[in-house]
């Protein structure tokens, strides 16, 4: 119990340290752009493909359940509310933890193990500002954008499945979408959720990587922790946010 509270305190202090190290400097911004490329732009394929398959499978299963009540036209409502409210932000964040969070933790862990972080300090460069802040900021920018890509692809794939494979009229699909998704209640809060998930994914991955034990084993433990803690945190926060927001 004591150890858990202490761990929570370490995360909080690390977050303050990151926020304190953000500078509007040219070099930090250049590093951030580079990180947006590595962790954001290069995650687009997995997020798009993941989103498309989630849309396909949700539509297929939802149609089977709805058509027994003669409510096949409500397919758009079911798909869009599920994807906007839960699956979009949550699955994007979990996929992101696996795709980029693990890489970030491994990179920082290896930097720690090979004393690169120590040498930055010795050259009077703040290691948090140099290596952690660009990754943190890049994640916070990337995750909401990736969520938009995920949702767009899953709805597009769901529409394709509904109209061309299941024979639901496309007009009904889009009309039920537009009448049931509220601009703020559903659409806006998907992005509120994903912004929160982005902050926590980034914080956990950078923290466990930055504070990894400087051994090969320490790096591998940090990588595992980034994915496990990150995913669990996303699921926990999702419950918390769903219970309070809606």
């Amino acid at each position, binding site marked *: 119990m004591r150890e858990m509270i202490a761990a929570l305190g370490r995360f909080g202090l690390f977050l303050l340290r990151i926020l304190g190290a953000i500078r509007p400097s040219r070099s930090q911004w250049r590093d951030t752009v580079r990180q*947006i490329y590595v962790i954001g732009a290069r995650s*687009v394929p997995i997020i798009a493909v993941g989103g498309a398959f989630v849309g396909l499978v949700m539509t297929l299963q939802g149609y089977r359940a709805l058509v027994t009540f003669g409510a096949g036209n409500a397919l758009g409502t079911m798909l869009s509310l599920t994807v906007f409210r839960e699956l979009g932000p949550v699955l994007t964040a979990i996929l992101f933890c696996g795709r980029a969070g693990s890489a970030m933790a491994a990179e920082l862990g290896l930097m720690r193990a090979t004393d690169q972080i120590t040498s930055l300090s010795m050259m009077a460069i703040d290691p948090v500002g140099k290596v952690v802040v660009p990754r943190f900021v890049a994640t916070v920018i990337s995750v909401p954008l990736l969520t938009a890509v995920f949702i767009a692809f899953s709805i597009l794939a769901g529409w394709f499945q509904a109209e061309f494979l299941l024979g639901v009229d496309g007009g009904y699909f889009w009309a039920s979408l*537009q*009448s049931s998704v509220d601009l703020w209640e559903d659409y806006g809060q998907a992005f509120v959720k994903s912004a929160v998930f982005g902050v926590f994914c980034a914080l956990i991955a950078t923290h466990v990587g930055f504070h990894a034990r400087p051994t090969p084993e320490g790096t591998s433990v940090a990588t595992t922790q980034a994915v496990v803690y990150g995913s669990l945190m996303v699921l926990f926060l999702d419950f918390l946010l769903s219970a309070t927001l809606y």
Partner: protein
Amino acid sequence: MASPKTEWSVGAFILMGFACALVLAFASTNSGDRMGGASYRVVANFTNAGDLKARAPVKIAGVKVGEIESIVLDENFDARVTLRLARSAGELPADTGAAIFTSGLLGERYVGLSPGGDPEPLGDGDEILLTQPAVVLEQLIGKFLFNAGSGDDADASGSSRSR
């Protein structure tokens, strides 16, 4: 440090994210109703609002012209329903009537307006006086059974009334 290729990819990624968000906002949410021009509010009191919910559609002749903004209980224990109507639907006569309908047997509730013939138009904040409450299916079935029981063919309803 950041090569032109990296910068190009980052720019494309950010554009793609914002494009997806924008297309989603227009294609799959109710943003069209929200930003679609000027609107005005009228209120209507119903003795029973049934399952009517906020954001349910308001229709004239089956065409959507607005939505329900709020439903509250007023001092006479009636349901006070605020309707938000689009200006683009034209001016409605002051003696327009409102009724709560159900689309299909189990479908969603909506408010149907039937325009009258008054030359005066309904303005912002005006009240619709001619209202017809929601039909509650259980009451309807109850009424039907009761009427059948009190009618001539009492044997069909199985009532205890002697002939």
